[in-house]
């Protein structure tokens, strides 16, 4: 059997049901080595369930998958040697000190004695927690805990790392610090699978999959998401008293949706060429001066909101 060494993770029709509830519905994707793959979706979409199946915490109901070339059902032990995992809860022992936590994970992953001290220093230094080394983990703040947890999760230099919402509830400095670590690992050929619901973070990923109600509804690079995958277009409208105008712009035929971004209105339209003039006509008719209407590249948030609404729309129709 030939092994494609450039593929780090692949799943085919991966499904997980809890009773009659389908948490993950026949999901497919492939992740190349060294890629930062973002798994996006609202809470309860099935992100964590997918990650847990890949790490061998949960067994899939049906479908198949491979992580680092090993089967996720039959070869969980081999997978465990090769992956790192950090859950949303930053799994550290609160009643151990920073150093004791690191020592524990060193032993768990059988880091050779000769390397332990160096790895420990590296983790402490990367996380910037030199002054907390003998402090109990419960006494350090969330951001530091997250950095320490990330360090412990990669103590054995895994080739693939799974991060389940690594940045939920931490401060912007820690988020930046974590993403720097993630990018550096990727640059060294480590594959990173990360779930998040922060759209600005999603921009850091090489490729993204959007998962909603257990279904993968889109996959591609951030740029593909904004240009090819999203069928609708986004127009940015600058106009005085934008909050008043938002409602009226939505009433224009061809406008699917409007939202306020700062003082600007973002209008999702089927075609910028057709609807643009209609919006301008609205302002002209009302005698408003100093407005601009232009087509912009949608943000990832625009893309996801639009895709999710499209999905809901189709499924309501189908039902």
């Amino acid at each position, binding site marked *: 059997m030939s092994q494609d060494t450039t593929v780090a993770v692949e799943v085919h029709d991966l499904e997980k049901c809890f009773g009659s509830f389908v948490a993950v519905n026949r999901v497919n994707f492939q992740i190349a080595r060294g890629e930062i793959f973002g798994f996006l979706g609202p809470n309860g979409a099935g992100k964590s369930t997918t990650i847990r199946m890949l*790490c061998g915490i*949960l067994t899939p109901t049906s479908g198949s998958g491979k992580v680092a070339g090993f089967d996720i059902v039959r070869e969980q032990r081999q997978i465990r040697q090769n992956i790192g995992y950090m859950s949303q809860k930053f*799994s550290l022992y609160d009643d151990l000190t920073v150093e004791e936590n690191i020592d524990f994970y060193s032993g*768990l992953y059988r880091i050779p004695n000769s390397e332990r001290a160096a790895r420990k220093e590296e983790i402490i230094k990367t996380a910037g927690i030199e002054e907390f080394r003998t402090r109990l983990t419960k006494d350090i703040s969330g951001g530091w805990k997250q950095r320490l947890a990330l360090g412990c999760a990669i103590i054995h230099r895994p080739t693939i790392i799974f991060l389940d919402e690594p940045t939920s509830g931490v401060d912007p400095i820690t988020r930046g610090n974590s993403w720097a670590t993630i990018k550096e690992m990727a640059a060294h050929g480590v594959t990173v699978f990360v779930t998040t619901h922060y759209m600005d973070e999603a921009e850091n990923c090489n490729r993204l999959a959007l998962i909603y109600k257990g279904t993968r509804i889109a996959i591609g690079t951030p740029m593909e998401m904004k240009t090819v995958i999203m069928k609708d277009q986004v127009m940015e409208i600058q106009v005085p008293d934008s909050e008043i105008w938002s409602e009226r712009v939505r009433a224009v035929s061809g406008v699917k949706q409007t939202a306020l971004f700062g003082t600007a209105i973002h209008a999702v339209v089927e075609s910028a060429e057709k609807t643009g003039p209609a919006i301008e006509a609205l302002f002209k008719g009302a005698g408003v001066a100093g407005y601009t209407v232009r087509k912009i590249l949608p943000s990832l948030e625009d893309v996801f909101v639009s895709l999710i609404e499209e999905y809901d729309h189709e499924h309501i129709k189908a039902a």
Partner: protein
Amino acid sequence: MFERIKSILIKEFLQVFRDPRMKVVMFVSPLVQLIVFGYAANTDVQNVPTAIYDLDNTFQSRQLIRAFTYSHYFTAKYFIATDREQNRLINKGRVSAVLRFDRGFGRDLEGNRSAEFQLILDASDSNTASIVLSYANQVLQQFNGGMLQERMTVFMETVPAIAGVDMRDRAWFNENLESKNYYIPGVMALIVTVMTLLLTSMSIVREKEIGTIEQLIVSPLRPIELILGKLAPFAVIGLAEMLLVTTIGVLWFSIPIRGSLLLLLGTTAIYLLTSLGVGLFISTLSSTQQEAMMSTFLFFFPANLLSGFMYPIQNMPVPVQYLTYLNPLRYYLVILRGIFLKGVGVQVLWADIVALLIFGIIILGLSSLRFRRSLG
């Protein structure tokens, strides 16, 4: 493999000894239980508070009352003269017994007729009441015997020798019939049981609660390594606890230890297979520490009541007696009392030790399998 087990082991010791609550559980609660059972839980009946209701007030009635009060089993607390007082004292629990002599007791006795008096007992505690009753019979027997002797000297010139049966009783293993000698080895077993059950189930369930168990599952750690790493520290703590309570029991409460200390520790280690196994099993049933605590006591109370700790097994209905053979704690108690009080060794206790070993292996084995499955 050893490396990973060692990591878990170190971590468990660090966590247990860092937790102030755990320290209380380990060191203070055994002390409290030993004190309670060593001093308070005393089924020895002495100085029964007694009310004297003597309407006769003759030489004869006073003589019998003296026989009762000189016995040290009964202490005359009240002298009363009405039914109302009698009822009040019994209802309020001021006295547990009333000695009542109606008018005519002395006259009947004087006239060589059978004389009656009444002993009223508070039998809401049936155990104590029956013990008091047997004391009363002893006192009365002696009194009757003495009276007979006296009469015979009055009526006969020379008293013929009457051959009687005299019982010389010897209470083996607990010469002074002290209930603490019976209870304290039992309490030691209970302390070791509760401690290891709670430590094991709580420490695993806590990892479920805080989510670290997932981190362990995704690591190369094998379930058997996790089990060994978790249970070994608690086995060591269980043995240390046994030494601690033995020391207190022997030095403070003067419980004899006539058998081998080594056998005591060895059989305790065998018993720990069971209690750690049950703890492990409970951890697979519970997802929160409260649940684990509840389940622990659901196991603990029946095991305790059917062990012969408080209530002798031979007093139980026969089907229940058979049920106790399924209770590992039963064998452990037999072994402990055997070692502490009787000073017997393997040649006597081997059957109980084998039973305990079989239970331990089965329980720990099944729990480990279940635990492995629960890890997914």
